[in-house]
């Protein structure tokens, strides 16, 4: 003898569960930790109650029969509790997947933005390194030239530094 038991996806996220109900056009009321639906069985409104980190659906255990005498069943497509929960689960999982995709897209955008900023900073650093190096070269040449008796004229032409060193010998 064997048995296979499957549970529905635990409805952990309230926001997504509400969105799933919205997508199925089910009306509900939120009362504290409860999401009270319009489905009314023998014991009253069926509801999702937040217990042990997930929303459990509370209902009359007999409400899974197709010929259950509903006091009020708003959605005729989902007469049994299991068909209702399957529909909610399907929407919940779809919304959950979309949310994950959106978060992944945002994460990728943020990574791209971080990488762009990092590359910009790297470019700035390399550019500053180059400018500092060229400046040091220029200053070294000017200093050496002056030590050797040259007068120095400096010009900048087309992004190039031109130094004219001159001295007179007798």
């Amino acid at each position, binding site marked *: 003898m064997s048995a296979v038991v499957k549970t529905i996806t635990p409805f952990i996220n309230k926001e997504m569960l509400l969105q799933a109900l919205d997508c199925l056009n089910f009306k509900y009321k939120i009362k504290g930790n409860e999401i009270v639906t319009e489905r009314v069985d023998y014991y009253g409104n069926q509801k999702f109650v937040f217990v042990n980190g997930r929303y459990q659906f509370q209902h009359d255990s007999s409400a899974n029969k197709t010929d259950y005498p509903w006091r009020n069943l708003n959605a005729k497509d989902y007469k049994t509790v299991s068909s209702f929960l399957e529909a909610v689960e399907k929407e919940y999982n779809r919304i959950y997947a979309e949310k994950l995709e959106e978060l992944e897209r945002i994460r990728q955008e943020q990574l791209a933005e971080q990488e762009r900023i990092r590359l910009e900073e790297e470019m700035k650093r390399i550019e500053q390194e180059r400018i500092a190096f*060229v400046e040091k070269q220029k200053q070294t*040449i000017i200093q050496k*030239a002056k030590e*050797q008796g040259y007068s120095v004229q400096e010009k900048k032409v087309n992004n190039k530094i031109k130094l*004219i*060193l001159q001295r*007179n010998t007798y």
Partner: protein
Amino acid sequence: MAEQTIAIEIDENGKIKAETEGIKGEMCLDELQKLLEDFGELQSVNKTDEFYQNQTINVNNKIQNKKL
């Protein structure tokens, strides 16, 4: 009196081009070496006509130094 000129061009990447004028013989290379010895390997050296001219100034200076 002789005027000695060295024109130095440093491009945006730090590459240096230097040209002497009025410095004759090997002295022109010596002068450039003094200025540029710290700046890495030379890519090329092109000698101008002045390189092959006599170093009259240098020689004169040496003669004067000997007299002293």
